[in-house]
């Protein structure tokens, strides 16, 4: 065997590998254009489901849907609904609503947005056989129990409470008055759908057509979704950016590095390690922001466990947590301590509902704890695969242990899905981490899904008929003021029972590249794509 043959063999394999790898080379730049306007890139995560409004409940997907669709209403910074596609939403009794659509709205395929676009879309999402994840959002519309019965097959294909009056008007009949009906209409679940969707859902999934400021352009799995500006959009403001690339990252640290070096234009949550000593404010001088949003961090008691059944004990543990210390040590003072179960930024919230019970009061805590006769160590449980859950739970543990003089152990669960599993199976034997972010800005949306008896997210086994009753009364009150008063009353019941310890209201730290100007977050904690501008 001659050495030249070896050399040739090696050279051949090497060059073929190089040729192979050179195929499809070249870079995907970030500056495409729609009529010359610049494109921006925004941090995102791979959507869990196809891009359908009725089947999307997680942030990765809803962020993109919000660019592709416009709903009847939009939320302002205070969480109040403002008409978008709707011209008027009126009701004499909060139960029978007449919704009139503004003229001039079209879908991206050119077909007009009509009353039927909404009614058909809502009926589709609500119908049990379509198994959409947002179906429950329609549960207070008359006829929902026929299209989506708890047991068995649906007996109707459409809800009797929805009626098309003319092209631009439809009526909604609810099963009971709802003072907050308008506030729910901004959720992705209520977006309209064009006729083409019902004709061929599979083709629609491959190429979603909305009525929003941006139209769908392309999607590469695990890489990105790109959208371009829709010139015939019916909304008011002229949109400045020509298109958006939602770029998916497996790891937000890489995204952060990209924002600092101007390789990515926007990141709406700075990773925990860069919040330490406010490092991100140095890295992103003059291009970072900190804005509270309607979300809350809590720790929930496993009330199904007899050891935690006594409300006095739960109050004692709440008073044993030094919230200020957690916020200063873990969050660098970037968030505010919670003063009630309803986070700041939810319309109708009453300030400082909780008082001493949610304030660090070591003496009273110790006294009340000793009286409860609790024995054995306290366990705090959290998943540790995201955010800084481990850090603040550990800090809480230290503070409980120091105050009450009992050992406290932090128990990590590796992944969120494992943690959720154990929560739902009610196998957690310690106090576990919970959190709630408000996507529909009402107190009802904070109290009902988490704390009413048997609610889907109430895994602790908490039940109090008086609380349930107050929440229900609020939901069917005649006016929003009355409703808010009833819900505030319900919150006070909750504080006495203390099924969870509230820790802090949440706040978003975000950063952007030197290209962006007029950066604002929407109520839903996303970049406001309609107002942001680009400076080249």
């Amino acid at each position, binding site marked *: 065997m001659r050495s030249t043959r070896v050399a040739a063999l090696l050279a051949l394999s090497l060059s073929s*590998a190089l040729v192979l790898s050179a195929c499809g080379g070249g*870079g995907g730049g970030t500056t495409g254009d729609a009529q010359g306007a610049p494109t921006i890139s925004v941090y995102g995560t791979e959507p869990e489901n196809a891009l359908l409004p009725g089947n999307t*409940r*997680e942030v990765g997907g809803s962020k993109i849907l919000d660019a592709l669709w416009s709903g009847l209403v939009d939320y302002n910074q205070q969480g109040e609904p403002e008409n978008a596609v709707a011209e008027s939403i009126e009701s004499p009794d909060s139960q029978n609503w007449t919704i009139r659509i503004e003229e001039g709205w079209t879908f991206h395929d050119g077909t007009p947005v009509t009353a039927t676009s909404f009614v058909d879309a809502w009926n589709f999402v609500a119908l049990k056989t379509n198994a959409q994840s947002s179906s429950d959002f329609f549960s207070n519309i008359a006829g929902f129990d026929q299209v989506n019965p708890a047991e068995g097959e649906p007996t109707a294909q459409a809800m009797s409470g929805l009626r098309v009056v003319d092209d631009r008007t439809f009526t909604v009949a609810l099963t009971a008055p709802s003072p907050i009906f308008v506030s729910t209409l901004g959720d992705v679940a209520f977006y309209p759908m064009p006729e083409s969707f019902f004709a061929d859902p599979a083709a629609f999934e491959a190429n979603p057509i909305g009525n929003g400021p941006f139209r769908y352009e392309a999607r590469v799995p695990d890489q990105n979704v790109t959208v371009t500006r829709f010139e015939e959009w019916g909304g008011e403001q002229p949109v400045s950016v020509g298109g958006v690339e939602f770029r998916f990252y497996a790891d937000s640290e890489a*995204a952060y590095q990209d924002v600092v070096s101007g390789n990515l234009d926007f990141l709406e949550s700075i990773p925990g390690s860069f919040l330490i000593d406010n490092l991100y404010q140095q890295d992103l001088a003059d291009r970072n922001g900190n804005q509270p949003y309607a979300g809350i961090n809590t720790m929930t008691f496993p009330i199904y466990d007899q050891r935690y059944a006594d409300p006095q004990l739960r109050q004692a543990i709440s008073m044993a947590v030094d919230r200020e210390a957690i916020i200063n040590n873990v969050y660098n003072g970037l968030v505010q301590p919670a003063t009630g179960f309803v986070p700041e930024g939810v319309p109708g919230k009453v300030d400082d509902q909780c008082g001493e019970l949610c304030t660090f009061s070591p003496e009273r805590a110790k006294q009340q704890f000793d009286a409860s006769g609790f024995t054995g160590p306290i366990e705090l449980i959290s998943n540790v695969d995201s955010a800084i859950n481990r850090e603040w739970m550990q800090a809480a543990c230290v503070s409980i242990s120091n105050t009450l003089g009992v050992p406290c152990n932090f128990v990590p669960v590796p992944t969120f899905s494992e943690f959720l*599993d154990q929560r739902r199976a009610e196998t957690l034997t310690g106090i576990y981490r919970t959190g709630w972010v408000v996507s529909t800005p009402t107190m009802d949306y904070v109290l009902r899904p988490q704390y009413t008896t048997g609610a889907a*997210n109430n895994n602790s086994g908490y039940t109090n008929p008086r609380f349930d009753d107050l929440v229900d009364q609020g939901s069917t009150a005649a006016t929003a003021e009355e409703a808010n008063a009833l819900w505030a009353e319900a919150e006070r019941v909750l504080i006495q029972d203390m099924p969870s310890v509230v820790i802090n209201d949440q706040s978003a730290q975000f950063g952007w590249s030197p290209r962006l100007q007029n950066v604002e977050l929407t109520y839903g904690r996303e970049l406001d794509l309609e107002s942001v501008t680009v400076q080249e």
Partner: protein
Amino acid sequence: MGRYVLRRLLQLVPVFLGTTFLIYFMVWALPGDPLAGKCGDQACPPAFIERMREEYGLDQSIFVQYATYLGNLLQGDFGENFRGQEVATLIANAYPVTIKLAVVALVIQAVIGLAAGVLTGLRPGGFLDNVVLTATLFLVAVPVFVTGYVLQSVLGLRLGLIPPTVPADPGLLDLIVPGYVLGSLSLAYVARLTRTSIAENLRADYVRTATAKGLTRRRVVGVHLTRNSAIPVITFLGADFGTLMGGAIVTEGIFNIRGIGGLIFGSIQRLDGVVVTGVVVLLVIVYLLANLVVDVTYALLDPRIRLD
């Protein structure tokens, strides 16, 4: 040699069946619900969960699921993940990037490693030898994620010489830094392996013979010595190529490279057994083939080795 290759290829079949089942079973046995993140923080409605379970066969036993999966796989259908994406598409998107990265890493470690090894092996105990010894010791001691993060933040963030992450469709130049990070550990091994081998063979009979025949030093070192000393290094590089193809999880994560490593990692986290098994099937095949190529290369390098 043809029979040898055929026999080796036939060995692929039981290995293939064994690994796919093991992987499928292990992912399936991981705690957690693969549908957990579907509806964000909130609970999904029962009708939605029921349909998903039915659609993905989660209501059947692991054996039925595996049999169905294998049946589809043999027809070339890699299946769909829980997000409704074709696994074949995901692999087709991710694989070229990973191959590029592995090739860059392999070239870097082969070129630098071999050169350093030959130079130091010829003068063991010299100044250069000590420098390389210290440098490789350092490389072996520092974990990949440290090298990765340090290079990323120093070169990318503070000095601005490179973009901190790699674009979706990277060219070879974009991959030099990640390729170096990925190959740095093996680079040290290659250098040391080559050095030892060269230093040993320097005193071998055939080297003395070649020198005695009056061959130039360049020819003695370049052809006789290096070629014979390359055998253990080639074994190592061959096995390493298999590892590089699948083991780039950390590096791909740091530089946001959309390759196989990230795909496996994300899919394990999401309990997406179909994706993990599909990718691992390919990796097993690549690994076995790389080893086969290594064994065949032996015979080319050293005529005394016969393959029967």
